[in-house]
């Protein structure tokens, strides 16, 4: 391999690879995201060892969820106008989840913040601010699917497993300590859980018959409204490196990836699963959303999109 032919072969491979890349659409991103992702993988795998060993039953998780939800409801007043509609949409997603033993409940709270969050045991909360931000039933399904994914993938309960496990043996303080340590570790991969939740949510949406593009649309709007502008491109190699390092340091403790990353991920998933989606008709439901009448009660043909 190390002879003259080997040299020619390697050289040709390098040149060919470079040329082919130049012929396509080239992205210019330079950052430490690859290293951070690998590091996140390592942390997540390490964490999983503990999670596997301290797994709680579905019943225990539901009980815990109800307990936490009651605390949330004390803090925030619920909006009953939206709750039935949101609950109807959410119920359409549930047949496709993995963990059937979880009983989901959907709550709408009075808050102007654009936010939605999930608690263990299927307790899903959406703020009025989020509902006012969304524009279609598919977008609402995307948000609810994302939060359901967090529950179904055990992201929510994992935050309590150590505490529950140590409480069982009467060492609750140790559990709190372990949980604190775990959260420190979780900083490294929390945002990848968000990406997983997005991906899982897309699957739920599709399986429930909603257009997954709606999630990307909502994220686009989120980016325009809340994300800061992009950084200018570095002009020197050293500038590029320092910019990447700076971005890595800033982004590491963030719990959510950027909207741009989420959009790209969603679009990639859709693209990758194109063969599964071809020929299917998926629902958007903008009119349904405006009227707050779920598709299950009013299926409008104009809201359907062919893939």
């Amino acid at each position: 391999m190390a002879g003259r032919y080997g040299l020619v072969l390697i050289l040709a491979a390098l040149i060919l690879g470079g040329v082919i890349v130049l012929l396509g659409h080239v992205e210019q991103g330079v950052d430490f995201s690859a290293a951070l992702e690998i590091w996140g993988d390592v942390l997540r795998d390490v964490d999983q060892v503990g999670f596997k060993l301290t797994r709680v039953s579905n019943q225990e998780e539901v009980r815990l969820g109800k307990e936490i939800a009651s605390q949330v409801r004390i803090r925030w007043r619920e909006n009953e106008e939206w709750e039935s509609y949101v609950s109807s949409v959410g119920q359409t997603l549930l047949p496709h989840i993995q963990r059937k033993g979880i009983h989901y409940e959907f709550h709408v709270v009075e808050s102007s913040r654009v936010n939605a969050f999930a608690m263990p045991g299927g307790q899903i909360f959406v703020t009025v601010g989020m509902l006012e931000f969304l524009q279609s039933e598919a977008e609402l399904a995307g948000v609810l699917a994302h939060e359901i994914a967090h529950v179904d993938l055990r992201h929510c309960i994992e935050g309590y497993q150590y505490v529950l496990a140590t409480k069982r043996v009467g060492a609750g303080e140790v559990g709190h300590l372990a949980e604190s340590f775990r959260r420190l570790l979780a900083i490294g991969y929390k945002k990848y859980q968000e990406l997983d939740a997005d991906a899982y949510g897309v699957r739920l949406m599709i399986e429930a018959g909603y257009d997954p593009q709606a999630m990307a649309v909502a994220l686009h709007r989120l980016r325009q409204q809340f994300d800061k502008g992009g950084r200018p491109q570095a002009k020197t190699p050293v500038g590029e490196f320092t910019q990447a390092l700076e971005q890595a340091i800033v982004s590491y403790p963030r719990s959510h990836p950027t909207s741009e990353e989420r959009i790209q991920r969603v679009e990639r998933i859709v693209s990758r699963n194109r063969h599964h989606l071809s020929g299917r008709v998926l629902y958007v439901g903008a009119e349904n959303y405006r009227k707050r009448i779920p598709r299950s009660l009013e299926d409008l043909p104009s809201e359907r999109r062919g893939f």
Partner: protein
Amino acid sequence: METLIVILLGVLFIRWVVISKRFKELDRKIEELSSRWRGAPPGEATIHDVAQRVANLEALLREDVGAAAVLEVPTTTRPVDIPPGQIETSSTATVSPQSVDTAFRLEVSRRVVAPSIPAKPSILARLGRQIREQVAHEEWEAIVGGSWLNKLGVLVLVFGLALFLAYSLKYLGPAGRVAVGFAVSVAMLGWGVVLERRVRYVIFARGLIGGGWAAVYATTYAMHGLEAARVVRDPLIGMVLLGTVAAGMILHSLHYKSEVVTGLAYFVGFVTVAISPVSSFSVLASVPLVGSLLVVAHQFAWIRVMVAGVIATYGMYAVRYTLGPHSGSFLGDFVSGQFVLAVYWVLFEAFDLLGVARRRQTIPLSQTIFPLNACGFIGVSLLQWSSVGLTDLHLFFAAAAAAYLASTVVRARIRPPSSFDDNTSIAERALLGGYESAVTIAVALATPGIFLRYSGLSLHVALLLEAEFLFLAGLRLGQPYLRTLSAGVFWLSVVKLLLADIARGGQVTFAGMNMMAWTSAALLTAVVLSINRSCIRPSKKPLLLLPELAYSYGACALLVLVLGFEIRPTYVGIGWLVLAFPLFEIGLRKELAEFRYQAYAVAALGFAAMVMLNMFGTRSDIVSAPWMTLGLGAILTYAAAARAFLLRPGRLPDRERLLVRDVSSAGGTVLLTGLIWHVLPAPVVAVAWGIVSLLLIELGFVLSLPMLRLQGNLVGALAYGRLFLANFTGTGETAGISHRVLTVSPLTLFFYYLSAKLRKEGGRGQLVAWESGLSRLYLYAPALLVAVLIRFEAGPVLAVVGWSLFALGLLFVGIRWKSDDLRWQSYVLALLTFLRSWATNFHIPDNLAGAPDRVLIGAVVVGSLYAGQFLCSRCRNGGISAAKSRVRDLLTQLDQQAATMYSILATTLLTLLLFYEVSGRLLTVAWGLEGLVLLVAGFLLRQRVLRLLGLLLLGVCILKVFVYDLRQLDALARILSFVVLGVVLLGVSLIYTRYREQLRRYL
């Protein structure tokens, strides 16, 4: 004026008082010395004296040197005539008169030396001695009264006469005053001449003669010079009369051959002129005075008179010009004054030249004439010029410089450089009348003159001309000093350029181009310096030529400055780099190391500029032009490296040649790397760096240049790191192939190729020390790349498929090629696969296919692990570990247990998969069946580890049914679990029992 004279007299009086005190002190000391000397005369000693003195001496000697030199002393006191030659004593010692005399002298010296007298008499002692010699045996009072008062009296009288001549009286007209003046003067002269014949009145007479001549001169001067005594209107007649008097004075003084007398006469004459009103005539009147002084001083070699004359001449002129009233046309006075000064200068210079010709400069006082003349002439002229205004001052400087140039020529003829010893310093030559002093002053005058006359480029050209003239003269005449002077002027022009012209800035337009105002001057200077440097040959006095040796550095620095200011900042670096090439070639061909050093310095400067400005972009106004800057720079530096590489041995010192080669190539690589970064998109940069790395390493092996290979390895490392920054997370693709695969895969192959290449070259002994571990490193690096590529290409969950297959591939190749490293990599990858599979459970969040995909993925992974076990079990891997580290030891042991490891991993993974996928009701059944399959496979494949794992699993099932199933499962599931498990267990047992014998052989 009068006040000054009174002050002068007062000073003289005080000085006399001080000196007289010193005389008294000296008298006392001399008396003391004499008395001491008279106290012990050795010639008159009797035997008693001798005996006593010897005793004293004995005591002294005992004190000083112990008993080693004791002399026995005779005890008799009767005077005895001792025959010469011997003194008898009562003891054994024999003493000779010489030794006694010596001993006595020793004793005397002990007494005398105790109050120490310095070996060399002080200045005052010498002065005292001189004065004493001069006054001989006369008493001091007589000296003061007879000689000093005589002289002072004459002085005062002549002063009074001069004042009388200038004073307007109602009843005595000019003629009368002149007549009176002459009468007094002649009377003094005549009386002096008469009295001189008598010995007693010699001193008095000489004072009168001196004063008489001074009075004659003063009166003659007043005949035209003073209004109150003007009887001669024509200045020419006045001058003639003065000249006549001066001639008479000279002739008469020659008769006495006394420097003091003549000096006094001239002193009085100078003072006379000094106190008269300032006018053209008064100025001219001093000329014959000076001239005659020169003649006399030259004739008799009276240097002190000459020195005093120089000081008096210029001092008088300066005092008269600054303090005295000016009369007549101011401009007229100025011109005549300058003329007179010039005459003074010529006269004194001529005297000095005559002295040089006569080799009189060996006398230290003679050496002061030249500098005094120069200081006086230039100082007084400048004083005069300052009152006129400085607009034409350059004319004075030019004229003075020309005069000193003429003096230089004359000095060179009459005291040629060859007349000095080779080891005579420049300063000594200058003092001894060499041309060096005159030419130095000429240059020192010409230079400010040029500054005053010219400005801008003209000034610079004029300076260059002056310097070049000196340089060429020095070259032609073989005179290093001239060239040193020229170097001074050259460097002055350079300093002026740097400190004044560049600082001032400004722009001009030349041939349609805008350039800095000083650029043309700088270029011209650089050219001249370069040409001059080429004319310089090695000298016996290298220190003297040191400023010239720096010509080329100066020229180079100027060229660098010009380029730095004239070229746009974007191209400054490349401009400097281009400049370095001709410098290097000149240095190489002419064998002048300094040019080569300049080339290196300029090249380093250019490189630094390119890195800072073009690569790092420290200035925001820099326009990006990477091809023209970094590209061209890389080509040039590589060309330099090639040039150094291809040079014939001996043309450059080896160390220098290697350094140039290596540093240039490294610089080229840096620039090329930067160029690639600038021009290519982010994902392709790593690939391009990989190509560069490959070429450098290959070239390094072909040409046997480890430095090139080092550069190649470093660039390869850069490419490797770059992948993690720019290539793994991008989403670009071409024709459905991700850019990640298109860039990472070739680089992976590249690193494997490097590993093989290094191993091959290592086998041929071509590697240097630091390369010895690289082959192994290049085996691990691409493995990591592949693992990461699979992770990002397939996703965190699906990556396990790729990893398991890659691990299998590594294991296969590792076994085939007997490579420990590849096998170890496969073990690590297998472990990683297991952990990731366990953590993710093959669940892909965005996979729409659902369970079938997951089962397929799981099957592939588990199958790969079992395949690995199969491969390992068919080969004997590892061996006796010659481990140098614990890690290596561990890996070697793992090698020996690889099959077991793979089996455990696969079985555990399968068991876990079943645990997560199969519901609790059928789990025991599933595990039981798994155990059975493992046993069967173990028997069929003759794999003991499979059978053992199967048995273990069945054991777990047994435990589960009793601990968990019995309590947690419903009735139907519980029954199924127990029944299926029971059947399985029985079946296994039956097999083991039925085929015991075969199994015994089998096992």
